[in-house]
């Protein structure tokens, strides 16, 4: 595969990570805790879409190899994830009188509950959307890029969602209110911001994006009760890398992590091609820059990035 090919794969995978990290980061800055149930919220979105798609079917036509019904399912997935998150906020988090780390622990419990419920309802085996898998786009293969129309759809929808969010944050008061709240909740109330409402919107957006991420993850790979949880570590890494609590940072972080994840084979090619001396060092590095160590490499790169940009990619306090 060519560099272009790896990059293309990276773009698609990044799209999913980005959707996950934005929500995590948003909730982090507004509700002020690291939500460990975020991964499982993605799972909820995916399974809701699965049920919906199963019920409505293709609905006639298709775009980018995806039946209309799938897009309806996507919307339902987003909606259900958002509703579940809002319900959890109302029923569990809001009545709690604990600090942020206490909320974090609570969210671990919530994550278990979500996952157990899904496993009780759907079993623990994996499954896929009933969408016909596609072959790579012929025109791109000569360039070493092997992606399908589905991949294009994932990337395109993710970009649309991210742009939509950007517009929302930039051109409506909501974004500013969110930042004000993240900064100083008491003063926000003093200024007349209805903080509970802002918080609910945050959950809606964060969980909705997570739901979308889950649906795409299911399309990209497959659905399983642990799918979201397995992605959580990567998403956390992306969020920290981007500078905790910064939405645009999370986008950048998610993008980078997704890329690195897919680029390891390319790195190992590069390392092999480099004239490293002395020889033992070359051997050592070649042995370490391999797929086995892919996740470790991602982390090492992250730490290096942090050393270069001490405040995360987006810089301190940026949103």
């Amino acid at each position, binding site marked *: 595969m060519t560099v272009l090919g790896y990059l293309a794969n990276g773009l698609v995978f990044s799209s999913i990570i980005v959707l996950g990290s934005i929500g995590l980061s948003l909730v982090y800055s507004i509700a002020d805790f690291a939500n460990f149930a975020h991964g499982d919220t993605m799972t909820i979105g995916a399974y809701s879409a699965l049920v919906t798609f199963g019920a409505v079917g293709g609905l006639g036509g298709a775009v980018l190899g995806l039946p209309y019904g799938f897009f309806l399912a996507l919307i339902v997935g987003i909606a259900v994830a958002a509703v579940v998150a809002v319900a959890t906020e109302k029923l569990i988090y809001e009545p709690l009188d604990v600090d942020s780390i206490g909320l974090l*622990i*609570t969210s671990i419990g919530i994550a*278990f509950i979500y996952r157990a419920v899904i496993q*009780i309802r759907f079993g623990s085996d994996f499954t896929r959307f009933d969408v016909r898998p596609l072959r790579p786009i012929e025109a791109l293969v000569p360039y070493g890029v092997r992606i399908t129309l589905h991949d294009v759809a994932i990337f395109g929808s993710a970009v649309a969602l991210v742009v939509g969010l950007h517009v929302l944050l930039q051109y409506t008061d909501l974004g500013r209110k969110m930042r004000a709240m993240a900064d100083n909740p008491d003063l926000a109330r003093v200024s007349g911001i209805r903080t509970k409402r802002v918080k609910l919107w945050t959950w809606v957006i964060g969980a909705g994006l997570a739901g979308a991420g889950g649906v795409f993850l299911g399309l990209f790979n497959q659905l399983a009760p642990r799918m979201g949880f397995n992605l959580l570590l990567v998403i956390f890494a992306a969020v920290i*890398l981007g500078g905790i609590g910064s939405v645009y940072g999370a986008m950048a972080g998610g993008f980078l992590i997704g890329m690195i994840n897919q680029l390891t084979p390319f790195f190992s090619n590069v390392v092999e091609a480099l004239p490293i001396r002395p020889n033992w060092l070359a051997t050592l590095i070649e042995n370490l820059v391999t797929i086995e160590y892919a996740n470790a490499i991602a*982390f090492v790169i992250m730490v290096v990035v942090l050393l270069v940009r001490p405040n995360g990619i987006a810089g301190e306090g940026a949103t």
Partner: protein
Amino acid sequence: MSLLDDPKAAFADLTRPEWWVLGVSVAFLLFLFVAMLTGGLSPTYFLFLVGLAGMYALLSFGLNAQWGFTGLINFSVAAFFGIGAYGTALMTASGSPIAGGFNPLVGLAVALVVAFVLALLIGIPTLRLRADYLAIASLGLAEVVRLIVLNERWLTNGSAGLRGIPGFFVGWPVLSTFPEAMPGLRLEVVPGSPVFLETPFWQASLNGLLVVAFAGGAYLVLRRAHRSPWGRVLRTIRSDEDLARALGKNTYSFKMQSFVLGSLIMALAGVFYAHLNLYVGPGDLDPITTFYAWVAVILGGSGSNRGALFGGVVIVTIREGTRFLNDVALPIDPAPLRLLLIGVVIVAVMRYRPQGVLPPQRELIWPSAVDGGGTPETPDSGVRERKGGGGDE
């Protein structure tokens, strides 16, 4: 003050949640004791649970010394735990690819040294920087250590894990043969439900002894260190590092001390684990351990040593106790039920004991200084009398 010096005062000193916890703990212990005597709970299994609880308590002591004391976010608990377990296993196990056959004391020493070096390696570059650095670097460290253990077969035996680990007391006088030497006992408290105490029980007792020694030692060290000027500086750092720096504290050095101390205690938990289960594998470095250590610290109340101890016990109760709830037949698929229960219990604890079960109550002032000072504990201004019911903020 300790219970031994002055039991009365020690009791009078207890806060309300402490009374609550003490009461519940005593009741729970009594319950377990009765269960054991009547054959409802096997003493051997109970001792295994004690071992697990001790192990989680150690992990949570270690994490508490980092997060609870100083606010250091360490996501590589599993890595230090694994270093402890693998350190001793590689030295003592018959299946070790590099050494093996050494006395477990050597294993203990090696494990601690490796954990020490690793803590320095990750602390030196990150502790000078913003708090998130440690978080992310430790997240990475956990993964790196796990992958090395998994992939470097020449060193760690890879995915096959290490077998043939001796018990901790092998080679010690008396203790090494103690379980076999003890006679089998038959206790019959409730007629018809005899309780047998045989070799596995005595073996489990030794393990219990070991973990009590480890955890007790760690607790004593931490308790003294915490309620002291040293612990106070750590708490200042946790709350406002700049202030500590302005007052002339070398915060980098303090953070390093706290980080290393915590890491060593985590490694100790690993050492115990290896000699408890007699087998270690790469799966033992799974991040789930980190996860549970965090839950333990926070359920117990960050910053409190007693809380950390309690948190360790709570984790085992949640994880293993739910197995018993599972015995009750329910009409749904039992498999994920325990997961569900664990989730519900965690949420419930946070709901009903929000400050963590035992939040830090004590001031970090050298005990004798406060007690000797004879200052009134209660504020004496007339305005601040307590009034029941009241406003919320």
